[in-house]
């Protein structure tokens, strides 16, 4: 019998597991080993998405910026000034919207990632969570260029309207990476839930367009976190993005540190989303090849 000199024994055992989880440590090891696949898939998807567009990546920035201006006009018509000096409310709205869109892009693209990954899923065995994870990376890459845009609007706004509140340098800006990580984790966890639902119910994606719109109106983007009164304050806590958006406004617009409860809220929703989404997704992922 011929000998394969390059053969490295790699024993894999496949046994039944239905609604329970597969062995998690090997799963996470495989996930980590193939992380480059997720980052490259994000890079290539980005490339494919903007390949044919003349304005290309400029749309990534223009889109949320124009939406921000539209919402600002609407909000200004309903309640001029809003009790904030200069363009402070525009700043709050823009950074809130950019952060919200980061999470929303994780969820909406992630929800489609499994059903769109048809042949790949039918052809190869790999941790399926890499597909929604790749969407989270792509959403993050799309979020990054909105930051300089926000800073630009802030500087121009201060110059045109000197009463606009602009925070000076503060160590509280070091809360920003924490907020971004919590937003990404929450978005990824929710993407896992909706990606699974979309495999079983193909109209989930349609419903998601309404869910995300309602979700934004219930989030402190168009309104300020401290404008809620009485029982309405619960909206800030039952909404997975409530704490991170409150923290975003507080750090970016006021230059202040988020409150202890807000920080705990951010951590709670990041962990809860990953745990619930992860369980829901991983326990069903071996079923995906049959369903898609």
């Amino acid at each position, binding site marked *: *019998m*011929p*000998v*394969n000199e*390059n*053969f*490295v*024994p*790699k*024993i*894999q*055992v*496949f*046994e*039944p*597991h*239905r609604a329970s989880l597969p062995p998690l440590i090997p799963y996470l090891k495989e996930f980590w*080993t*193939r992380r*480059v*696949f997720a980052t*490259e*898939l994000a890079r*290539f*998807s980005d*490339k*494919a998405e903007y*390949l*044919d567009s003349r304005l290309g990546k400029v749309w990534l920035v223009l889109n949320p910026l124009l939406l921000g201006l539209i919402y600002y006009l609407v909000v200004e018509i309903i309640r001029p000034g809003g009790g904030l000096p200069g363009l402070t409310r525009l700043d709050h709205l823009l950074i809130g919207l950019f952060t919200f869109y980061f999470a929303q892009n994780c969820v909406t693209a992630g929800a489609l990632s499994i059903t769109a990954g*048809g*042949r*790949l*899923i*039918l*052809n*190869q*065995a*790999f941790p399926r969570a*890499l597909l929604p994870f790749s969407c989270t990376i792509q959403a993050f890459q799309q979020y990054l260029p909105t930051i300089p845009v926000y800073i630009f609007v802030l500087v121009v706004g201060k110059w045109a309207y000197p009463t606009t509140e602009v925070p000076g340098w503060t160590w509280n800006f070091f809360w920003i990476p924490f907020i971004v990580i919590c937003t990404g984790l929450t978005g990824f966890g929710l993407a896992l839930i909706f990606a699974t*639902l979309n495999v*079983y*119910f*193909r*109209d*989930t994606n349609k*419903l998601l367009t309404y869910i995300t719109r309602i979700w934004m109106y219930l989030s402190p983007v168009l309104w300020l976190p401290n404008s809620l009164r009485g029982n309405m304050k619960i909206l800030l806590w039952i909404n997975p993005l409530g704490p991170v958006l409150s923290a975003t406004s507080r750090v970016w617009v006021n230059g202040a540190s988020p409150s202890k409860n807000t920080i705990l809220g951010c951590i709670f929703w990041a962990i809860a989303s990953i745990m619930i989404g992860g369980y829901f997704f991983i326990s069903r992922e*071996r*079923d995906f*090849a*049959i369903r898609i």
Partner: protein
Amino acid sequence: MPEDLAIRIEDLSISYKVSLEAKRTLKNAVMRASLKQKERTRTIEAVKHLTLDVPHGSVLGIVGSNGAGKSTLMRCVAGILSPTEGRVTVNGKISTLLALGVGFNPALSGRDNIILGGLASGLNMDEISDKTDEIAAFAALPDGFIDLPVRTYSSGMYGRLSFAVAVSMTPDILLLDEALSAGDAAFKEKSFERMRQLCAEARTIVIVSHALATVTDLCDSAIWMHKGQMLSKGKPEAIVDEYLKFLNVGSLPSSYEDM
């Protein structure tokens, strides 16, 4: 598992439920729940109590009519589907071609798709970069096509590229499903050559094929599956004869090709 085995399948059964609803939507689910109706489903027993050993360096052919459970069995060996009962043990790096197409994004170039395919199968960037030109040459893509979007490829080019990717990843175990119908006669001969080379290097191949000539030419053992069960196993010629008798179409040369 003994060291000389590449695949061991022990009393494997795979069944799954399929919905009989025209469309599975949340709307229908809510409607059903409000009317207190249950979803109409059917359980498909795709593979029933199958036991099989595949030694390293062998080529196993699987024949059987549509719905015999061949593809489901292959997906389970690849770790894509979960067994319902029993166990599958695999020793070695697997490469698969179970659905035609490199399979990612038609807007991206062949090169980009090869990179993504390689990364998904667990290779690293250096290993894949070394192979992309070799893959393009094997797939006999016309000059420059490797850097054009895959949507501009003809179906033949697409199929050849898929096959080239699967066989170029230096797998220990190669699982192929209907792949050989991808190219013309010349490409088919090249594919055979490549698979013989893989066998000579003691790599294991499992082929599902309706082209029975492929099974007799290439395989050193074969199994016949019917409605989820393995009806027989043995020498490819004997299995193909048995299968043809079952089909009652005789053993004319024409019936050997692309049945």
